[in-house]
């Protein structure tokens, strides 16, 4: 057991608050994504509260771990977790997608300190992460680079260009976490884990990463215990100096009965009633949510 009971309960409380704030923020701005941020909540919280060597007061600290949200449309999830972690006030979430905001629809590193790259056009984050990891080796720095990928976006060929080169340079300081939530924006007709076919169907991403020479760890991406132990293993580096891929099995729209496994919630604006239903489903009272 990595986590004491109290610590686990605290992370679970943060997860509920994050889920509610994601919905509330998208509701307020009238635009944004829901399904993808919800599936990544536990991963983001684990990274920002437990795993990464970071200091919210010094977002440009040279020796910090680097984090790249390759699936940039999950920006609202990242912003929520960063706010809760102390990078900026929770109240700033209300500016999401509004004019002059630091919280752009997709992460913009030129506006918000604490972002290590901009993202939005899919499938590009692993390459930037590879640059950081390669640079760390050249500069003899010991920080780790974490890249959060979506299972839909790894249909982009550029991801596999990066996977090949990362393996060739034996970058054991690079970890890709795949938010394997089983749905993409539209995808193929039929049923998989969600209400459309799985982005990879009969070809599991774990096998592809393995074929590219990565160490693969498969976990339940909503279980803090499993996320933390996988990240601990990843940070120590693979014995054969390989990069690590953590395949986190998740549920798109996780946590709310009306969003789980439904592709239509990829980007859909929740109504006031949806917010009420969310509070009930999460067992939260509005007064427990930071403003």
């Amino acid at each position: 057991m990595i986590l004491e009971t109290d610590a686990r309960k605290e992370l679970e409380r943060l997860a509920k608050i994050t889920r509610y704030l994601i919905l509330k923020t998208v509701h307020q701005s009238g635009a944004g994504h829901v399904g993808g941020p919800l599936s990544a909540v536990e991963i983001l919280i684990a990274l920002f509260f437990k795993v990464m060597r970071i200091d919210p007061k010094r977002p440009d600290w040279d020796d910090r771990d680097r984090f790249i949200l390759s699936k940039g449309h999950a920006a609202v999830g990242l912003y929520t977790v960063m706010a809760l972690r102390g990078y900026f006030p929770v109240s700033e979430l209300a500016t999401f997608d509004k004019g002059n905001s630091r919280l752009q629809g997709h992460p913009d590193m030129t506006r918000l300190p604490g972002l290590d790259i901009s993202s939005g056009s899919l499938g590009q984050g692993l390459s930037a992460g590879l640059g950081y990891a390669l640079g760390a080796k050249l500069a003899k720095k010991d920080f780790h680079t974490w890249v959060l990928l979506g299972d839909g976006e790894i249909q982009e060929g550029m991801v596999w260009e990066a996977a090949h080169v990362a393996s060739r340079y034996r970058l054991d300081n690079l970890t890709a976490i795949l938010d394997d939530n089983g749905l993409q924006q539209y995808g193929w007709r039929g049923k998989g884990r969600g209400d459309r076919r799985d982005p990879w169907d009969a070809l599991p991403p774990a096998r592809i990463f393995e074929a590219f020479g990565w160490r693969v760890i498969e976990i339940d991406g909503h279980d803090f215990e499993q996320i933390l132990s996988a990240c601990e293993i990843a940070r120590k580096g693979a014995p054969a100096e390989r990069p690590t891929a953590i395949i986190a099995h998740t549920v798109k729209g996780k946590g709310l009965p009306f969003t789980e496994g439904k592709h239509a919630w990829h980007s859909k604006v929740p109504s006031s009633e949806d917010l009420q239903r969310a509070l009930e489903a999460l067992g939260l009272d509005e007064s427990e949510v930071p403003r």
Partner: protein
Amino acid sequence: MKALREAFGETLVELGEKYPRLLVLDGDLANSTKADRFEAAFPDRFLEMGIAEQNMLGVAAGLAHLGFIPWLSSFTVFFTHRALDPLRMLVAQTHANVKIGAAYSGLLTGYTGKTHQDVEDLAIMRAMPDMVVLAPIDAVETRAMMHWACEYQGPVYLRLTRDPSPVVLEAAYRFEPGRVLELRQGRDVALVGTGPQSTRLLEAAKALAREGIEAGVFHLGSLKPLDEDGLLEKLRPYPLVVTAEEHSIYGGLGGLVSEVLSAADPKRVIRIGIEDRWGESAPNDWLLDRYGLSAPRIAERVRKEVES
């Protein structure tokens, strides 16, 4: 005569000595772009990225944000077409300090045909915010621009060519961004070029002078930024302006000069370049003649326009 790619390879080595954080990333073409010189001198700072240009742009962005100065080696077409999206989002939109050594630009790419002849790159790169767009006239300016680029913090696109071309600038030349170079004074017509095409304009001007047509010759090595007032001032005395470039007549040098003149000093501008079509495999002389870019063809066209 000296090829710009030769100057590129030599200067990388020179800059490698001066800047310990300079790296070279290659897309499996270093023996063509001459970046292999850098690998020979600094093997640990030469990173082969394989035939995967999109990833190369992303890796460069990460390295740049760690404080390295990555210089990239590939052909023009693979930067501005194959890798355009990461070039845009990860490099330009983050203002990453990445230097793009775009070898083999234009038509004279060594019998490759239209697949490798990039006649759209200037239009694409000029339209991209945050991007500096440079096209040196010769080996001397290539070196000068590369030295400047290492001091400048931000993305730079350097348009290079494959085959030897005349060296016209003096060794002591210093590059200033935006500056319009007056290579020859004239009276009847202003010829404006970019890249080594500017040297063919000089040649054309000499031929025209023998027939009594005095052509001024101007070189725009710095397409972006550009000293627009300087350009206007230099072109003001001329009744006619002719631009020539190894690029589409849309959106490149001709487009730029027309944009500037139309707003402040409207006058006739003739744009010589690739007229909305693809290139083809052929010897250089044949291509320059076919597309109206050789000195004799330029002179012929200018004569016709001046007389009309």
